């Protein structure tokens, strides 16, 4: 078993570190002054790195499956279960989670499925151990395979998309110089791929991380990659502003993340997810063991205000709270809520959740492959991933917050997407909306559903972004949909693959059969969970109604996008004439991703992907949680969720079809002129086009006050501190003036006086030195006479 863990960690480490190697090579080798800027070597190297990473991830997945006897797919079919099977599964997950490091206690599952360990110890400050750990379970593996696969596709796509950078003198037509010309610079092809490699490294490191601190490190690294890639066209003012915005908004979320980290460290004393084997053979419990133990229950005290951490192992190796109060390590329940909210704050920032969603649309300033990889498929998914990974630490209150935040985000994003005209902006808002879905799914207890949607969304959203990239490249960087139209004939592959993506995100399926696009399955899972949740907690009915409505809206605006772009008559004839289908290195990935988007979720909740993900499900999720008191919420168990499946699925499908139909009527057939609607609901349209006024709100709430404060601070600086400093300086100047006078008058005067007197003495004595010998004799004579006179005058008589 140990060897399997070693093999897995080695394989994943290779997959993780290869992009870093690629980054280093690309940055240093390609930025060589004589490097050929027309060479595609950087792209090929980057593709090799990430592609090899995909191979390694796949092998690791296979090894893991073999090592666990493919228990993941043999897992008890929880979907159709009675209560008993659900419990059984609960045991399953419990064992998989709590007993991963030491010998399995229950004889039912002797195979180890979770592997954790340490790559390298960075530092140790007292109890604080900072190390590079790994934590490998089925979620990690799934994420690895998904990230490397999509990244490979996008890398290949980018080879074609970024080809225009393969010049020594790139003219940026969106940057105007003072003399009316355009900005010229060397092509940055290699730089793009080096950033992409660095991003892949950071993302994979984040997924592989075995402790929350390591997650934070790679979290920030992902952020900086995002910053670099959004600001890739740094000379464009909009791009540099968007990069700053993304970075700063993410800092807001990261602030919460740091607070959460500090609370966790103070209360738990460790960052590690998994249990740590000390050198003395002792086992230190990880975060998950301490919080949830083997049964997934928080060990609350009777008054419910304090949680006792499970720091002792019982006879079965289960972590239990010590009975002895003096041995107990406790955390206030409120503090646990704050910690959870803090960490979730980081997720909000990274995953562009309400209220920090504003950066994501602006991030579309980056090249389209960046939007596809970073801002739809992976980086923004990191927030959802972390929320999923950190799930055991979230108490129901936090989960409720997550659910509502996700719900609001989904709705807001979807509504804005209706009115957006920029093709990439539509996709960006749809990304926000879908991320809201995932958070909602996690929040209402659908751990598997949320992450399920994460993976499927990554597939079809990257597909759609790449399609939009293909369209943009074909239309010579025209992104406005009103200027497009009728592109189906010009670029059929792009149009059809895009249609697949649109149907996937809309969640279409053939009713009555199991044939469905991936989006249907994942969205269905989320909605079913939400429905079950609202059944348990009727007061939170909005958590089902709003997502259902959003599903319809999603279907509407996605088909709007497709009809607008690919059907109808060309609205800009000149543009239309020059449109061409993209080369194979762009359409190839499209086709591959289209297959994935359509079929990655085959089987739905009985499919391999969902089973794979839910295999790592935290303890106790499947059982659901009964809100004991009136003010607490209940989480639905798997059984309850399954019961809601048919209802939720039908409702979602219905909503999707309605949305599609309206869209077809409005944009496909032109039965209703959208301009009329726009006129009639001008204020609504303006409100939506203004992105619900979030930017204005933030401008008024934060930017303007910040400016006021800054002005005030500047005034204080200018009129108080500067004055004080200036006074000091003036005093100094005055002192030095006096000092100078003193120096010049007194010190110099003394020195000059000495010099002058010596000089004048010399001048006067010089006159004595006549050189005339007779005078010298006279002097002698006079001197002798004088001496005699003095002798006579002074020598005592007698």
């Amino acid at each position: 078993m140990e060897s399997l863990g070693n093999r897995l960690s080695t394989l994943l480490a290779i997959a993780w570190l290869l992009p870093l190697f690629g980054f280093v090579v690309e940055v240093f080798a390609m930025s060589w002054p004589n490097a050929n800027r027309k060479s595609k070597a950087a792209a090929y190297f980057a593709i090799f790195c990430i592609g090899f990473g995909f191979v390694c991830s796949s092998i690791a997945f296979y090894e893991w499956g073999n090592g666990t006897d493919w228990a993941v797919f043999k897992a008890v079919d929880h979907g159709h279960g009675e209560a008993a099977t659900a419990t059984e599964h609960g045991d399953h997950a419990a064992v998989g989670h709590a007993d991963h490091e030491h010998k399995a206690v229950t004889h039912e599952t002797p195979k180890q499925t979770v592997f954790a360990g340490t790559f390298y110890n960075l530092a140790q400050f007292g109890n604080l151990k900072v190390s590079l750990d790994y934590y490998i379970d089925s979620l990690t593996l799934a994420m690895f395979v998904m990230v490397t696969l999509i990244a490979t596709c996008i890398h290949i796509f980018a080879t074609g998309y970024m080809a225009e950078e393969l010049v020594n003198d790139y003219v940026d037509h969106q940057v105007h110089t003072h003399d009316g010309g355009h900005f010229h610079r060397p092509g940055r092809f290699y730089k793009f791929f080096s950033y992409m490699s660095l991003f892949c490294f950071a993302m994979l490191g984040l997924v592989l991380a075995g402790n929350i601190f390591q997650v934070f490190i790679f979290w920030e690294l992902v952020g900086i990659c995002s910053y670099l890639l959004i600001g890739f066209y740094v000379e464009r003012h909009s791009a540099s502003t968007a990069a700053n915005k993304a970075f700063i908004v993410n800092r807001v979320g990261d602030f919460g993340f740091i607070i959460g980290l500090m609370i966790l460290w103070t209360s738990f004393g460790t960052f590690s997810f998994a249990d740590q084997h000390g050198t003395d053979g002792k086992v230190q419990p990880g975060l998950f063991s301490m919080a949830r133990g083997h049964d997934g229950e928080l060990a609350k005290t009777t008054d419910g205000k304090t949680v006792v951490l499970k720091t002792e192992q019982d006879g079965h190796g289960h972590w239990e709270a010590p009975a002895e109060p003096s041995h107990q390590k406790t955390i206030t329940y409120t503090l646990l809520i704050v910690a959870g909210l803090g960490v979730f704050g980081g997720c909000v920032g990274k995953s562009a959740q309400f209220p920090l969603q504003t950066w994501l649309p602006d991030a579309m300033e980056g090249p389209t492959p960046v939007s596809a990889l970073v801002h739809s498929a992976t980086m923004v998914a990191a927030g959802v991933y972390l929320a999923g990974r950190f799930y055991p630490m979230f108490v129901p209150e936090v989960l409720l917050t997550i659910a509502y935040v996700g719900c609001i985000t989904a709705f807001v994003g979807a509504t804005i997407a209706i009115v957006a005209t920029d093709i990439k902006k539509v996709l960006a808002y749809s990304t926000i909306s879908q991320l809201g879905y995932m958070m909602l799914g996690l929040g209402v207890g659908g751990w598997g559903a949320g992450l399920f949607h994460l993976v499927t969304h990554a597939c079809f959203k990257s597909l759609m972004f790449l399609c939009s990239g293909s369209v943009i490249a074909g239309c010579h960087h025209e992104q406005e949909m009103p200027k497009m139209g009728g592109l189906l004939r010009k670029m059929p592959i792009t149009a059809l693959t895009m249609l697949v993506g649109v149907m996937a995100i809309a969640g279409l399926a053939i009713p009555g059969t199991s044939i469905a696009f991936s989006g249907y399955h994942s969205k269905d899972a989320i909605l079913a969970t939400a429905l079950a949740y609202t059944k348990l907690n009727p007061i939170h009915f909005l958590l089902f109604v709003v997502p259902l409505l959003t599903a319809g809206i999603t279907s509407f605006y996605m088909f709007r996008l497709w009809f607008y772009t690919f059907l109808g008559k060309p609205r800009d004839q000149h543009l239309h004439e020059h449109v061409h289908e993209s080369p194979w290195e762009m359409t190839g990935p499209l086709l591959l991703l289209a297959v994935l988007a359509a079929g990655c979720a085959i089987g739905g909740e009985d499919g391999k992907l969902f089973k794979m993900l839910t295999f790592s499900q935290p303890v106790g999720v499947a059982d659901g949680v009964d809100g004991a008191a009136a003010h607490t919420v209940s989480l639905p168990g798997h059984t309850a969720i399954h019961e809601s499946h048919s209802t939720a699925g039908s409702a979602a499908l219905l909503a999707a079809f309605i949305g599609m139909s309206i869209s077809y009527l409005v944009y496909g057939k032109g039965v209703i002129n959208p301009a009329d609607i726009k006129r009639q609901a001008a204020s609504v349209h303006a409100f939506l086009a203004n992105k619900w006024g979030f930017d204005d709100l933030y401008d008024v709430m934060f930017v303007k006050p910040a400016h006021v404060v800054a002005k005030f601070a500047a005034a204080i600086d200018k009129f108080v501190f500067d004055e004080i400093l200036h006074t000091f300086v003036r005093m100094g100047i005055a002192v030095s003036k006096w000092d100078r006078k003193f120096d010049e008058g007194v010190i110099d005067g003394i020195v000059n006086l000495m010099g002058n007197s010596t000089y004048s003495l010399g001048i006067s004595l010089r006159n004595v030195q006549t050189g005339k010998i007779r005078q010298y004799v006279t002097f002698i004579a006079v001197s002798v006479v004088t001496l005699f006179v003095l002798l006579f005058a002074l020598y005592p008589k007698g």
Partner: protein
Amino acid sequence: MEPTPDKFLFISAVLFVCGVVCMTTKRNGIGILMGVELVLNAANLNFITFSRFTPLGLDGQVFSLFVIVLAAAEAAVALAIALNFYNNHLTIDVDRGDELHG
């Protein structure tokens, strides 16, 4: 009227003072040399006087002999210098030889 020591010494003093005055007034280099000779003679006269009137005895005469010898030597060298001076300045006026004035 007896030729007492003080009379000899007075003569010596007159010689000495005349020598000094000679040295200070004469612009002729030879004249200065003569003044020097007078001063030396004054010293010699003193030596001889003390040799006669004091227990100094023969030593005074010995010293006066040395003084004569040295005066002769001095005269020879000084005359050579005077000749050189004359060669260089075409005059024996010592006031012209003030190149070393300050």
